[in-house]
């Protein structure tokens, strides 16, 4: 039987030269699929679930309205509307729509889409007021933001 010679060379270290490449790849993936958090959301957001989801075609045309109970206890429990970084009333929405619309190119202005991110516990009364104001502002394309559920 042959005797095993203990090799004198230590086992070569695993090359980690490609590790940065892998991490960079991950980094680029995340940079592409995510977007910067532009504002802090100050209302509770438990988005309801639905099955018939459709994607908004052009992301640049979308403006967001958040509705829900304020996160801060001191603000009370009544559901509030948040646009940009501030709380507003339904009457303040047409102004917000105008402001968002002025950011778009002239030919795209009628196509503005409002994405409503509404907490599940919000009552329809407030939402109806919001919708009525959106009609006033002529921002008629709206999208109720929802999550996907699997049909059983």
């Amino acid at each position, binding site marked *: 039987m042959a005797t095993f010679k203990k090799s004198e060379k230590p086992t070569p270290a695993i090359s*980690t*030269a490609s*590790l*940065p490449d892998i*991490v*960079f790849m*991950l*980094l680029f993936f*995340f*940079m592409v*699929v*995510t*977007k*910067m*958090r532009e504002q802090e959301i100050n209302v509770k957001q438990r988005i*309801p*679930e*639905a*099955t*018939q*989801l*459709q*994607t*908004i*075609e052009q*992301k640049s045309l*979308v403006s967001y309205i958040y509705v829900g109970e304020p996160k801060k206890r001191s603000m009370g429990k009544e559901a509030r509307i948040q646009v940009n970084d501030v709380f507003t009333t339904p009457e303040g929405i047409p102004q917000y729509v105008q402001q968002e619309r002025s950011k778009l190119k002239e030919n795209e202005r009628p196509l503005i*889409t409002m*994405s409503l991110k*509404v*907490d*599940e*516990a*919000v*009552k*329809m*009364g407030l*939402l*109806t007021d919001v*919708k009525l104001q*959106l*009609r*006033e502002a*002529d921002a*008629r*394309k*709206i*999208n*109720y*933001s*929802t*999550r*996907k559920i699997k049909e059983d």
Partner: protein
Amino acid sequence: MAIDKKKIPEVNAGSMADIAFLLLIFFLVTTTIASDKGLTITLPPKREKDQKIEAKVKERDVFNVLVNFKNQLLVEGKRMNVKDLKEAVKRFIDNNGKDPDLSVNPEKAVVSLKTDRGTNYKTYISILDAIKAAYHELRAKHMGITVDEYLAFDAKKANKAMKVKYDNARKAYPLNISEAEPTQIGK
């Protein structure tokens, strides 16, 4: 002089991974995955003052869905569960004049949805979802594709034949959802 045989030492790239990880974690923390999915609807145009609306819709062409502030459903005068709503709406739309109580044809069929100011948004979404599901299933059937394929339909990427089919399906089953002013009982 002898030429130096030693090569230029390589730059140590060991910390490169650390730098990249740092960047990666920074992006993970500061960004969110865009979730721009949802139920799209188009609101009716702004109502001018002293404008009279003449609605010439027959009673049989209207499918009444009422929701009260306790989130209970009344469909065509009968109580119903949300899970049965989709089939009921489908039957109503695709009646084509067979049943005298249901719609004459899909183009004339109108689904009227009336909520209360106290109805939960969650209930409203589940009802809207059921109504849209009924329409989407009928349209998908008309086009000869599955509902998932219909939902994923992108007008920019689709070929011409599919676009024509899509437009035809939309014309055959127009989404007529009429949302009435809510009642004020459960404020």
